[in-house]
């Protein structure tokens, strides 16, 4: 009988410790109509991160806002040179609403870095990143790492409107070839996205694809990946309790060797093989 789930993790010396740290808020301001950027003064020991990893955040209690469990959030930026940890977020619930109340000088308890990040294999020279909305935040550290490794990166960024197309300057400043698609310009359809990707594959070539979040993009990239034999990775989300493997709350189903297996997004992920992922 084949194994239905990953074997118990081997906690050897090579496994990194998890740190729980009180950081100090440097700034916490809106970057456009919908998103806010939180900049934390963070110790070096928590800034040894990989693109795609996340932190588990203890959101403050503020008046009527009383989040209880920690909230997982992907890292928007980690800068050991500046001692900064960045999160880009949209207020969607009690946890993020409480985060939005934090002011410069407040302390903020974070746990991490957690999870398995993106891979950039040595022979992956031309990278394609496809994201919708805030998904871009999860992929931003990947752009920085691609630049550090001297890889070519194209980013297809889709959003409702130009005004919420976030981080584009950030990506352009890193030398990324940015292709912006919006609903208001009617350029964000799956069909159009597919034509653009097919053209990239035909012209420059694509060695690996990265995405997160959107089911439509996942299905498109799985399809493109299969027909052109291009590998890919996806960062997935799931509601979490503990955030590092104990509680089995955050499982999702994956295709593996002809079986459907459950894996923990917090520990085996949040980055998974594109073809193994199942949308929800």
């Amino acid at each position: 009988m084949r194994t239905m789930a990953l074997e118990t993790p081997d906690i050897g010396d090579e496994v990194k410790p998890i740190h729980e740290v009180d950081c100090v808020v440097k700034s916490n301001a809106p970057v456009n109509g919908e998103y806010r950027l939180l900049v934390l003064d963070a110790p070096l020991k928590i800034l040894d991160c990989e693109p795609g990893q996340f932190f588990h955040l203890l959101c403050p209690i503020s008046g009527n806002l009383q989040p209880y469990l920690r909230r997982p959030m992907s890292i928007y930026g980690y800068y050991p040179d500046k001692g900064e940890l960045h999160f880009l977020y949209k207020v969607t619930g009690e946890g993020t609403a409480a985060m939005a109340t934090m002011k410069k000088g407040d302390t903020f308890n974070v746990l991490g870095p957690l999870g398995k990040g993106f891979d950039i294999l040595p022979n992956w020279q031309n990278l394609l990143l496809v994201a919708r909305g805030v998904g871009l935040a999860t992929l931003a550290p990947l752009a920085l790492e691609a630049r550090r490794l001297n890889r070519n990166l194209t980013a297809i960024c889709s959003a409702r409107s130009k005004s919420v197309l976030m981080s584009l300057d950030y990506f352009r400043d890193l030398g990324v070839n940015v292709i912006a698609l919006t609903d208001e310009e009617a350029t964000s359809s799956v069909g159009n996205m597919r034509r653009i990707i097919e053209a990239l594959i035909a012209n420059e070539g694509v060695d690996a694809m990265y995405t997160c979040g959107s089911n439509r993009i996942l299905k498109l990239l799985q399809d493109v990946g299969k027909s052109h034999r291009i590998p890919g990775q996806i960062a997935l989300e799931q509601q979490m309790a503990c955030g590092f493997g104990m509680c089995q709350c955050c499982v999702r189903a994956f295709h593996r060797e002809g079986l459907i297996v459950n894996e923990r997004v917090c520990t085996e992920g949040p980055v998974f093989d594109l073809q193994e992922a199942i949308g929800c």
Partner: protein
Amino acid sequence: MLDLTTKIGTLKLKNPIMPASGTFSEDLARVFDLDLIGAHVTKTITREKRSGNPTPRVCEVRGSMLNSIGIPSKGVEAFLANVIPFYAQYDAPLIVSISAGSADEFASLCEDVSVPGVAAIEVNISCPNIEEDGKAFAMRPSTTEAVMRKLRNATDLPLWAKLTPNTGETTEVAKAAEAAGADALVVSNTLLAMAIDIHTRRPKLGNLMGGLSGPAFKPIALRMAYQCAKSVDIPVIGCGGISNLEDVIEYLIAGAVAVQVGTATFIEPKIMVNMVEGLEAYLKTQGLQTVSQLVGSVDDGEVSDGLVFMEAAP
């Protein structure tokens, strides 16, 4: 010299703080040295591989949480091969939590996990008994006694019975477990509860209902731990909503010889270590030398048994 040790039958723990089953795993070794706590308690295992309940498996309610994880298990073989060897590197005793759908399956699994490296077996009799209309074994004294007798015959290791709050017969169930040979009681598992999203009108858990844990549940589990400590002679291990040092002390005063910490570890992964340190400092400031001086020290006056063992709010 301060003495944080506590005895659970023949088993001596260096301190009375241990994790609750399901909220602990090898992964916590990435946060602190696991030998700082009194014992290690595994997630409940079943003989067969199980995938667990549909998601969402957890939701939060004000200041607490509900879960319907549903005992996903890699099966007993993987457990014996991978999990027990991992804990051999630690001095803290390993407590293995097991569950099964019938008394015979329970006993056979109990026998199979009675191996070197295991210090005691916690039997999660709060799970549904498939032979008896699906109600948990520990909801009734008769089913508790029946399963505990079979378990008692299956192992020489200490047996801890984990009770359920989903019963109106707390002390009867506790006495039945004791009569059938339990060495200790863990009081208790989570309380059946529910939450609904008023916008989608969908239950917030994939399994519709789940177990309440966290601070909101503490007074209920504390009441049960108190009643059990009053009604049996075997040790009681308190479990339910313990979130800070004061909660630990409260359970000890109520009669628990040790405590299990669960949900609080999700919020503060190092909380158990902080509790051990805090308990030592507390004993010092109180002029106490041992944990046992606190255990059962509740000043409940000369109340009647009727009051102590009541099952309905007055």
